[in-house]
């Protein structure tokens, strides 16, 4: 698939001398939802800042649909909407005024009907005449989302869009994101709620200490790095795992009534059939079988830990 955003060899050393990014290469595909994950201070916001023109890169190039984001910044920025991590809002402005301002700032002709739709989508319509300082944190977050959507971006950056947003509204936001994607908007989001990435993303990138340590198709990643567990609930109580089952490294539950087999989800030879045969041969009667698969969160924690 054609990439809409191309980040090449981008690094950033802040004035303090701190190197926040070390030579990042990343291609974002047109129309995908890309989740950028990483622990606090990994460099996510810095990378987004560089693409959006808020942070100056120390080296490298960013190309947005063919527009170099420094030489042809107008072409590049016209396509991008940014919802920043910090709640930077104009306290004294009304919700309506600030959204209209954003639209004008990005050079789009006034379109009250469109702004109205955006505000309704993020459930802020009833607050349109309220001053932003009278809103709650979660509402301010939605104001920022509305501002970014008000100028109809082709690429939307959501830097922790759901931080501080309640569960109900988080679901609404996912709906908004899905609807945008359906319209062909490319979305790059960062989040610390990994289930969010798991639910939404097409691809996942993991950044740690300024380095992109992995970029993968989400499904592929889960298949490759995900672990599966098969738990056999037993009809009888076992005191120990029978000798013949030793190669499977089964774990016996404390109450002796369940055996758990852990295997790599991507493994070619998982040995499930042989294991079940062996269990039957050992005359172990089964009550139930359950399988569970590790979440993106487990994978992520594993990866970052391995990276040191």
């Amino acid at each position, binding site marked *: 698939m054609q990439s809409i955003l191309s980040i090449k060899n981008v690094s950033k050393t*802040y*004035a303090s001398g701190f190197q926040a990014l070390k030579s990042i290469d990343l291609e974002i595909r047109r129309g995908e939802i890309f989740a950028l994950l990483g622990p606090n201070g990994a460099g996510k916001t810095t990378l987004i*800042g560089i693409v*959006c*023109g*808020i*942070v*100056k890169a120390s080296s490298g190039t960013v190309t947005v649909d063919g527009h170099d984001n420094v030489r042809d*910044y*107008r*072409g*590049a*920025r*016209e396509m*991008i909407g*940014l919802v*920043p991590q*910090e709640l*930077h*809002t*104009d*306290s*004294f*402005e009304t919700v309506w*005024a600030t959204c*209209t*301002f*954003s*639209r*004008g*700032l*990005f*050079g*789009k*002709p006034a379109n009250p009907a469109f702004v109205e739709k955006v505000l309704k989508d993020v459930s802020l319509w009833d607050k349109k005449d309220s001053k932003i300082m009278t809103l709650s944190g979660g509402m301010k977050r939605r104001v920022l989302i509305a*501002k970014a959507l008000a100028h109809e971006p082709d690429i939307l950056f959501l830097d922790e869009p759901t931080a501080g947003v309640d569960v109900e509204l988080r679901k609404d936001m996912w709906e908004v994101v899905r609807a945008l994607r359906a319209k062909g908007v490319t979305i790059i989001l960062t989040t610390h709620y990994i289930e969010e990435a798991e639910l939404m993303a097409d691809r996942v990138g993991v950044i740690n200490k300024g380095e992109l340590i992995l970029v993968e198709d989400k499904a592929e990643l889960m298949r490759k790095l995900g672990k599966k567990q098969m738990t056999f609930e037993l009809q009888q109580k076992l005191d120990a795992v029978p000798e013949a089952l030793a190669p499977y490294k089964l774990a016996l539950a404390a109450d002796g009534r369940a055996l758990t087999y852990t295997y790599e989800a991507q493994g070619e030879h998982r040995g499930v059939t042989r294991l079940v045969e062996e269990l039957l041969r050992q005359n172990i009667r089964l009550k139930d079988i359950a399988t569970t698969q590790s979440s993106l969160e487990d994978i992520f924690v594993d990866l970052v830990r391995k990276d040191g």
Partner: protein
Amino acid sequence: MNHRAVWAIYSFEMARTGRTLFQSIVSPVLSTSLYFVVFGAAIGSRIPEIEGVGYGSFIVPGLIMMTLLTQSVMNASFGIYFPRFVGTIFEILSAPVSALEITLGYVGAAATKSIILGLIILATAGFFVPLKIAHPLWMLAFLVFTSVTFSLLGFIIGLWAEGFEKLQIIPLLIITPLTFLGGSFYSINVLPPFWQAVSLANPIVYLVSGFRWSFYEVADVSLTVSVAMIAVFLVACLAIVWWFFKTGYKIKK
């Protein structure tokens, strides 16, 4: 040219003025009027005429200039410093706007406000002292160019400052003293030669002199020099703004 962005910034800034009408218009008009009352009506009648102009009338151009300078600088510096301070500047930086467009929006709004303020003060002065405007077009030109130039200076200060103190220091410690010493209340011709020479190093002398000439055709320095000084100042401010944006100095991380 992203004219919609210029308009968006301009109207945003003008709306801010509207919200703070008392602080930004009423209060400077009131405090300047006090000068007219005290120096024009009360004490002015006991001070001899200067070059054929009554004292109360003589100080009007200088006082308007003083308000124009401080208000332009304060308003423009606040306009750009505040978004930097609260972080909303991110949106301006991420928008498809050029340095010129950002400057036009912010400085245009600050200058507009100063011009309106100047005209209101001028009208108010008419209530207290006799006024004569010999060259209305020149008067307007001085009003407009001074407002633009000092709004640019304020814009520079707002881009540079890192705290509210720094924002206040320049208007308070530089602009106000220089206007007081810049012939707002006297003709520098009354000073001893040494202090006359020192005064000529004060750029505000040229502004006040030119502006006063447009009223009463009396000037401390020639009109050409006044105009040239404003032009030099304007170009210098433009160059500094251009350099700030070009290098991202204090604007981008």
